[in-house]
């Protein structure tokens, strides 16, 4: 056998084992996947080759460790809302590395947050936090805690959410300042505990600290402010503020939520035409959004127009759990009950009342 034939045979073996690896991962058998990789797949290069054959090789510096390349590719896919591809990359990255890889765990946590597998999302966020904790990586701990806070927020545990958001700003290393964004997160938690005046203080602080720039975050602060006012019954207080500040128009999801808030305000005021118009605007903004956020807007519009609701988002991956953690620090978070059908309330919503009430399932 000459050199190229030898290489080809290895490649074929690699493809076959990579396929097996994927099956292990899809069957929630992370242990089996890791074992297979260690014993059967000769090198990360084989996996890279297999992925290249599938047209999925990320163009990254050749010196970058393979697991890291996959992780980067996973985050690229996540940012492009391709959750299935991101899932595949993160799962493979975890299988190819023997060390803690908090970025992968965090990536899976974010994917599962978006798909509604909130118990698993929590478990992966906790894994990311524990990895970062072992590495004394304050910035990563902060990110993981932020992700964890979002999961608790969506899952109806605002006190846990508040704790995670609060901690996420406290674990940052000296010299790394917490941002107005943190105030926005804390406000989200307090909106759900009913501490509305304090939530408002935090949001106004966040808006003013953002200065005169048209920060991408500003749109989210306005979304929260609008929903806060809808909760408190003090409708219209923020109108002048919204009109006076420019915010990033490239944030369709935030703008979609803003439209949903305006539609809810119109709905509470019995102005049906405005409800439809705001929802149509929001729905158009999220036309290509295949996530549950896009579905929410489209389903609300369908209710408002008395049409059949659209089909629900489908995610082409099989979620899997991380290895168990022996940490007692994270135990309170792990003991908190969360669903893996996080968007069930939206699935079951049968009218506009029930549909609008689902705003709490999102990071608003």
């Amino acid at each position, binding site marked *: 056998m000459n050199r190229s034939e030898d290489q080809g045979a290895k490649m074929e073996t690699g493809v076959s084992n990579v396929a097996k690896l994927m099956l292990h991962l899809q069957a929630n058998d992370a242990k089996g996947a890791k074992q297979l990789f260690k014993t059967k797949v000769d090198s990360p290069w084989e996996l890279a080759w297999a992925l290249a054959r599938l047209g999925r090789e990320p163009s990254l510096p050749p010196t970058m460790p393979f697991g890291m390349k996959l992780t980067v590719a996973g985050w690229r896919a996540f940012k492009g809302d391709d959750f299935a591809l991101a899932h595949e990359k993160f799962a493979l990255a975890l299988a190819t590395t023997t060390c803690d890889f908090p970025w992968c765990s965090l990536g899976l946590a974010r994917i599962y947050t978006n798909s509604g597998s909130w118990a698993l999302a929590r478990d992966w966020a906790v894994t990311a936090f524990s990895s970062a*904790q072992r590495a*004394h990586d304050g910035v990563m701990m902060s990110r993981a805690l932020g992700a964890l806070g979002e999961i608790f927020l969506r899952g109806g545990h605002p*006190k846990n959410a*508040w*704790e995670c958001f*609060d*901690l996420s700003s*406290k*674990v940052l290393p000296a010299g790394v300042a917490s941002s107005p964004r943190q*105030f926005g997160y*804390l406000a989200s938690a*307090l909106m759900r*505990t*009913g*501490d509305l*005046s*304090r939530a408002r*203080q*935090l949001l106004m*602080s966040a808006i003013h600290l953002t200065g005169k720039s048209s920060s991408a975050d500003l749109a989210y602060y306005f979304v929260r402010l609008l929903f806060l006012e809808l909760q408190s019954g003090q409708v219209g207080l923020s109108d002048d503020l919204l009109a006076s500040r420019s915010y990033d128009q490239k944030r369709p999801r935030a703008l979609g939520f803003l439209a949903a808030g305006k539609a809810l305000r119109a709905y509470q005021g019995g102005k049906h035409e405005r409800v439809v118009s705001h929802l149509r605007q929001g729905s158009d903004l999220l036309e290509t959004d295949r996530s549950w956020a896009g579905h929410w807007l489209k389903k609300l519009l369908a209710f408002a127009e008395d049409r059949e609701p659209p089909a629900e988002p489908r995610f082409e991956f099989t979620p899997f759990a991380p290895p168990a953690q*022996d*940490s*007692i*620090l994270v*135990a*309170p978070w792990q003991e908190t009950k969360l669903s893996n059908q996080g968007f069930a309330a939206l699935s079951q919503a049968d009218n506009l009342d029930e549909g609008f009430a689902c705003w709490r399932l999102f990071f608003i």
Partner: protein
Amino acid sequence: MIRLGIIGLGKQGREHLAAASGASLANIVVAQDIVEDARDAVAADYPSLELVTSIADLSRFQLDGLVMALPHHCYEDIWPQVLSLGVPILKEKPLGRNLEEVNHFLQMAEEANCSLQTAIQRRAHPSYIELEKRLRNKGRVKEIRARLHLGFDPQGSSGSWRAERKTAGGGALLDCGYHLIDLVHFLIGRFELLSSGLWDSDGHMLATFPARIETEARLVGRQGNTWIVIESLVGGRKDEEGRYQKFESVEVLTDQHKFVANREGLVCNGEPVFRCRRDWDVAMAAQLDSFASNIQNDTWHAQEHWDQIPIMKLIDQAYLGSFAAS
């Protein structure tokens, strides 16, 4: 034998009386309470105990020290009169309703030349003493999770002095969180507070209704690379019939061991390694003896004495953090 008097015959005062029978260095000879029913309630059980109505009456008994077990708000008015007796004081925790009051009490006691010790029992309980002993030789402590759930209905204390911030000074944190912070200090030393979540019985953050007390307190702290979680609840988990459950546990994770301690004993890596009675009498008797020993030998430098101020500082920090806009 050191002769002690006790002020206050409520639940805690009666526990001190019961524990005194197990103390080898101290004897409680007189008890004061302005409430007749409270005096009557102990008269039958302690026939040799003298019972008096006023603090001034205590001066007739040639006391070596005083034990004080009163509701938190009662000390403020009587403190000068108590100090005028000129004897060392064992005061039930907390040392004060807030750090300012602690400093005020300490300063007045110093001026009156009265030594002041805080009664805090958990670090004198056999199971926690055993835990501390084992931790000394078991490698680096990585994490501690300390929990105390009182098992009361969080909505049920309205009307009591404990339900008002003005009288109680605080709720779950000052009441049972104090014990847990003290235990952590006892086990590993002082730590830095990172986050404090203090919530009232309606699930609101403490700052929203400042006059209320917190029925749920969760603190996260750090000492170097050691992480600490403290959870104190007026309520707790509910059983199948919807009743709140009492619960107490201190879990400690070291490099190689996981300890779980409560007042019934100690478990290491899943194996029971120490058992004891959960009652307080042994711990409280030990505390009375420690107080008596301090009186006899004029030794007021023990760690348990000086740990109280850092506890109050940490609690004050948690309250201030909760009241301030983040």
